[in-house]
């Protein structure tokens, strides 16, 4: 798999707390059997209800790094949410915290989730708002976010960081390599043998 060490690109300022996955991709777009085309519907209702949504602004169309607040991606487990962000063009997300299923879904898709403090997020968000062409660099080797001369020491969950930088984030192959141990573990679980 591709090793994901660094993501560099313009930022998307969306410093809001408790953004749920229903908001990222409303349920009516889940009526599909593939993830194709989901990128068109990112934050669909927010965009329709509030003109000038950041995802619609011309100068953010090249954004790659989403800046969010606390508890990003809460609610439904729908992988459609990170799939939609990825297909729109988002390749990394910086937030104070992430809902855990969302975090797991992102990692499985190779999207780094970076934890920053509220103060760091304010600074990064303000920098991106002031200059939409400003490039943010998320470095997983150093767990930092850099823009211009400013470097923020952030945090990336260690298991996620290792998986992404070593190219192990598509973990299915590794899981399958454990088949003998899987079968062994299963055979020791009383309910698998129906308490015989």
């Amino acid at each position, binding site marked *: 798999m591709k090793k994901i060490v660094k993501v560099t690109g313009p930022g998307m300022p969306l410093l*809001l707390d408790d953004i749920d996955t229903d908001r990222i991709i409303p349920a009516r777009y889940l009526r599909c059997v593939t993830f194709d085309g989901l990128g068109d519907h990112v934050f669909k209702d927010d965009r329709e209800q509030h003109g000038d949504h950041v995802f619609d602004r011309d100068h953010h169309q090249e954004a790659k790094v989403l800046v969010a607040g*606390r508890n990003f991606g809460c609610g439904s*487990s*729908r992988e459609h949410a990170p799939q939609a962000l990825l297909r729109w063009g988002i390749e990394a997300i910086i937030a104070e915290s992430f809902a855990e299923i969302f975090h797991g879904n992102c990692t499985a898709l190779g999207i780094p989730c970076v934890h920053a403090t509220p103060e760091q997020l304010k600074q990064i968000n303000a920098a991106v708002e002031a200059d939409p062409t400003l490039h943010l660099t998320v470095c997983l080797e150093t767990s930092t976010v850099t823009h211009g001369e400013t470097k923020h020491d952030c945090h990336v969950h260690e*298991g996620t960081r*290792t998986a992404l930088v070593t190219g192990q984030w598509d*973990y299915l192959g590794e899981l399958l390599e454990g088949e003998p141990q899987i079968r062994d573990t299963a055979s020791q679980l009383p309910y698998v043998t129906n308490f*015989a």
Partner: protein
Amino acid sequence: MSDTRNLFNRVWDNHVVRELASGQSQIFIGQHLIHEVTSPQAFQMLRDRGLKVMYPERTLATVDHIIPTEIQSRPFADGLAEEMMTAIEKNCDEFGITLLDLNDDRQGVVHIVGPELGVTQPGMTIACGDSHTSTHGAFGSIAMGIGTSQVAAVLASQTLPMSRPKVRRVEVNGELGPGVYAKDVALYIIRKLGVQGGVGYAYEFAGTVFDTMTMEERMTVCNMSIEGGARCGYINPDQTTVDYIRGRPFAPQGAAFEKAAEYWLSLASGPDAQYDDVVVYDAADIEPTVTWGINPGQSVGVSEEIGSVDSFSEQEQAGIREALTFMELEEHQPIKGLKIDVAFVGSCTNGRISDLREAARVAEGHKVADHVRALIVPGSQQVRKQAEEEGLDKIFEEAGFQWRAAGCSMCLAMNPDKLSGRELCASSSNRNFKGRQGSPTGRTLLMSPAMVAAAAIAGEVVDVREVAAPVGV
């Protein structure tokens, strides 16, 4: 030395296959549940890689999210829904998985049918591509919602890569007052700990309130663990758990059941069990609770008024303002008296037979207010059948509620049951997110089924304790 592990850690340890290069553990998943929304892409991932399902007998499929609750003849009017139905039928057939299809009387919402059939058992790890998988923790299992890539992983390997969460004991002691239900306890805990308070944790719900709850009530509480940000929630298995499972079709039978029951009870956290955190609440502080905002943590007791923006921390204030604006509410407004347009009883949180009984008890002999559209949607075909045997359908219909077929319905509105425009809905479901009930501008108030029924009749939010004789006294 005594074993001071809590149930979570005992069950976790039993399921560790090995450590992975990332430092995460590979965890065996004892029971996998799937439905039509989050599985089609997973099956395609298997096909693309030429993989089989490793333990097809350990996955059970049902259809729930997109199921119409009125006209169920095939093909469905919604072509996209029909395509999803065809996909799960084809996938289950091709990969050898049992499917509870619409023509199977065991069909229903995935988190209702698992327990109902005895598929859900203590000491298991359970995964499903749906965040409310936490429901199954009511039995003392580790039950987690997952995304579609993880559904593919479970299908192919029956395992997941996971990091061990911390465990918080959430203790509620004392007795709940009349008219206060499991749903109110769940909403109270989320209000106290916050919608992000559980991130990094599994929640163990303990204390006399949970000890005396029925399994159905326990499921309601565990269902909403995810709304508090927890990875999962659980309640230690006890005699109530064992009695509930006995005789169910997928449960062990005869001598095997007795062995199973002994094993299940042995997993429960002991008095010396250790936790990463403990919080303790008093049941007497909990009253019927109603959400007013756009996340399940934004709630008040029914006798309270909505707080002022200033009463929240600085970080929360922007979200509070957004919620007030979206909901068209004012600071200091009482929640009681708020006029509703729609009432919905159902969903994986509160679509069980006990929920319908409680709602029917409030509705009996009354009429739904003229301006209210009211739906009762049983969580499964079995729940519907049981309710009809008890005559609950007649009570609802005579009161002016619509009596529907089983499904997820107006919880997330992937089927034709939706809010329209700015409608305000009293709902027994678990999420009040913007647009959740199918209208981008629709508004949701979460509350217990009894409170929904009371609101349907009054046409506005009322205190169920003032309009109906309390249950159980």
